[in-house]
């Protein structure tokens, strides 16, 4: 028996080597193909449809294309980067471990884009990796992880994202707010309401997030209307206007008498967006006595569809 094995082993070894060489050759071939396709995609002169077609072709190559795509996440040509990200997302789960490794790697640009790409891949390994990235010392990476956690819409991320609303970097706070809005967990309402006191871009994003959470956000928003800070009140009104709900009308109506024309305008617009009969009637009534052109504009301007 031993002799038989000994006699066959050189053949097995040879076959293994040939198979190995074949695999390397195929991988090399795929790599060359990916490089060529990305180079073409990076040409600004080709039409967008052609770029979409290229991305599809790369997706068609499957997991074998992934190792070649990863370095291109840090390419200087943004068209190349976009196609690489799109292709990796299209390949899906098989790309996840590579992207997770890239996210933990040394190249910050590649790590950032790997984290963003992971947002579009639904795989059990992704959310834990993104949560880990949320603790990174690189705030760009934390921002990308927060954003992707929002895209994942996984409620497990709520608590870490709430913690991220206290991040020292406003870009991270903004991304966390947006993500919490996507997840829609009412547990995030208080943290988001606190962000209404933040910088403009953060409070704006928080307002959108609170509107996404909807009715459970109303008590906190109504409380914000009492803040006396016009910027906070305007942001809260913007959120309330995005929640078509009768209950908030009574909290908004007193603001139509505010001494601040910007607050009155925002209140009128919020009521129009709520659009209940009571809200509309109230706006119609105050229109007759309102003099300020800004408020009148907000009363009459067409609402976005």
């Amino acid at each position, binding site marked *: 028996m031993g002799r038989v094995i000994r006699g066959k082993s050189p053949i097995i070894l040879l076959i293994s080597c040939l198979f190995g060489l074949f695999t390397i050759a195929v991988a090399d071939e795929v790599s060359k193909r990916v490089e060529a396709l990305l180079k073409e995609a990076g040409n*600004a*002169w080709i039409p967008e449809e052609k770029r979409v077609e290229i991305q599809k072709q790369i997706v068609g190559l499957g997991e074998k294309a992934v190792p070649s795509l990863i370095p291109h996440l840090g*390419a*200087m*040509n*943004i068209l190349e980067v976009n196609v690489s990200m799109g292709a990796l997302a299209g390949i899906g789960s098989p790309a996840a471990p590579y992207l997770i490794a890239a996210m933990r790697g040394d190249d*910050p*640009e590649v790590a950032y884009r790997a984290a963003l790409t992971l947002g579009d891949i639904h795989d059990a390994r992704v959310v834990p990796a993104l949560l880990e990235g949320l603790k990174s010392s690189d705030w*760009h990476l934390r921002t990308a992880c927060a954003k992707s956690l929002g895209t994942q819409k996984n409620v497990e991320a709520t608590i870490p994202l709430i913690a991220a609303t206290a991040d020292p*970097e*406003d*870009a991270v706070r*903004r991304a966390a707010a*947006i993500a919490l*809005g996507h997840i829609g967990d009412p547990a995030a309402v208080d943290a988001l309401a606190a962000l209404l006191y933040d*910088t*403009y*871009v953060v409070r*704006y*994003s928080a307002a*959108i997030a609170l509107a996404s959470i909807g009715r459970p956000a109303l008590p906190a928003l109504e409380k914000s209307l009492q803040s006396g800070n*016009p*910027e906070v009140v*305007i*942001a809260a009104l*913007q959120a309330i206007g995005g929640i078509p709900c009768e209950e908030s009308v009574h909290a908004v109506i007193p603001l139509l008498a505010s001494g601040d024309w*910007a607050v009155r*305008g*925002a209140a009128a617009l919020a009521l129009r967006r709520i659009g209940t009969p009571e809200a509309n009637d109230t706006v*119609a009534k105050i*229109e007759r006595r309102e*003099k300020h*052109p*800004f408020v*009148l*504009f*907000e*009363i*009459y*301007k*067409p*609402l*976005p569809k």
Partner: protein
Amino acid sequence: MMRNFRWGIILLLALAAIGCARIRRVGGEGSALRLLYAPFELGDSHEDLLDVALHAIGMKRDDLGYRKDFAQRDPFRLKIVDDLLAHPLKTVPYLKSAGEKLVGSNTIGAYDFIVSQIYENPVGATGRSSLRPDGGTAPAGAAPLHLATEEAEALSEIEKLDADGAIPTGSGKAFAILVNGRRAAAAEFVAAFEKLTPQEIAFLREKALAVVSEDEDMPDKEFQRFVAVAGKVDRAKLMAAGRIALDADERAFEILRKAEVKKKRFHYKWETPGGAIEISGATDDTHKGDASILVDFGGNDRYLYDAAQNKNEGDSFGRVSLTIDLGGDDIYVGRNRPSFGAGYFGIDILLDAGGNDTYIGGDYSLGAGFFGVGVLEDMGGNDSFKGRIFTEGAGFIGVGMLIAHEGNDRYEAGENAQGYGLTGGAGLLLDYKGADSYFTGAMLRDHREEGKYYQSFAQGFGMGLRPIASGGIGLLVDGEGNDTYEADYFGQGSSYWYALGGLIDLKGNDRYIARRYCQGAGVHLSVGGLVDLEGDDNYVAWGVAQGVGHDLAVGVLYDAVGNDTYTAEWLSQGAGSANGIGIFADGSGDDKYIAPGDRTQGGGEIAREFPSVGIFIDAGGNDSYAGPGRNDSIWTGREAGVGVDGKGKIRWEE
């Protein structure tokens, strides 16, 4: 009969009034638009309209700006770019002040100002660029420079010629300044590259064109290496070298223009290790570009630098050229090599004292600093300047300045021109007076809009090498006269990637025509501004124009005074996209605004789930609008967009 008629009129008026009230009450979606814009009375005419606009969209002044690095920092980031990105309301005062300073400066003052904006350590800080009090040009504190035997001999002969009256009396001292200046500048220039190996210098020279021109493909790793190697150039020393050369040329010029010309016809030439020294009389001469110090005492001269022997730039590294032409209607032609104030891995200063001159340059010409310093100063006459790429005030790891004093001048270029600052550099086109026309384009097509239009990257354009190297400063400053500016894509006070581009026109009734990314447009984390301080002006663009910030960038258009007309189609006149900040402001005058498309006259949007801010302000006059705006009114655009037309002040931040 009359009584019935009167009752009829009353009845009709009553019906009309009821109808109007009805329309207004129905209001709502899209109806009664004209009633949306009730007369706007601030009550206090001194109220600040910027604050009014910001308050309308729930913002405060502190909310405007970008105080974080959205991309990795690199050694080329400029302090002024960071500052203006963080405080966009400083952009107008900064550009106004820069324009006024530059118009009030001589060439050396302009150079010092520009250098102080791109390097934290101004030229003088090294202590090496000061001139010796005895008129020599060796840097103060540096070891004395010894002239080559040939140079010393040439100077000795020139002194003798001066004493004999063979050349204009009193001109000899000027040549001593020029020769010493050339040597001192050359030494400083070489010192600027002392951290680079010969192979690295050769690599920079080989790849330089590919970096500037998008036509050539360059692999990422090579690109990164290029930027890393470029970063090793000591820019303070480079600037000091330029300053020494400029100072020598200017001081020599002051002596030469006072020298008494007794006879017109003479010509002398000496070959020296630093290049030939040539003196030419006040006759109509032809020069071939083989002298590195050339003084021509007048006449209608021809500088024909296209000759085949001048094409090889292989041995020109560190060349310092100082040229002075003391008058006449001259023709300068140098299409095949860097020419006429072209510091291409070297230093080149050209002063022309006057006359109606024609300059025809190629790539890297007419005030171009490309790993060097290039200055072209024309002191008068109606001149014509024509260049191709990287020309007419363009700088990349260096400074390029084109300065024209009086006369109605015509500037034409392909792209990367007319106040163009690329990474580590600054480009300035400064025209003091005259009705001038500026044109760029018609060379390389832009890929957008199916290639129908051309790239400009010009007329006050700052640009970086995205995404690895922040950009420089590009300024076009015009002091007086009714001027015309024409560009296509990327121009007229615009910018790209951590750079600053500014067009400042102080006086005159001007016309601005461009296509896209123009007239106060910041693109991708940069700051672009167009400031026009006086005159009845006309602005025409297509889109992403007239005070637009695109992608975390700041774009501002400010016209202080005059009855102006603004025409654009979309994303313009105070608009933000992709989280940018766009500000449009007109101070006074009866103005006309046409911008009927999407996101105009205070147009914002939500992108990446946070706002882009667009602010439109007209602070006086009776204005007419085609677009969302109305005279004496306030309105909001989409999302964080707002417009105010009132009578009040615009308080920028100093």
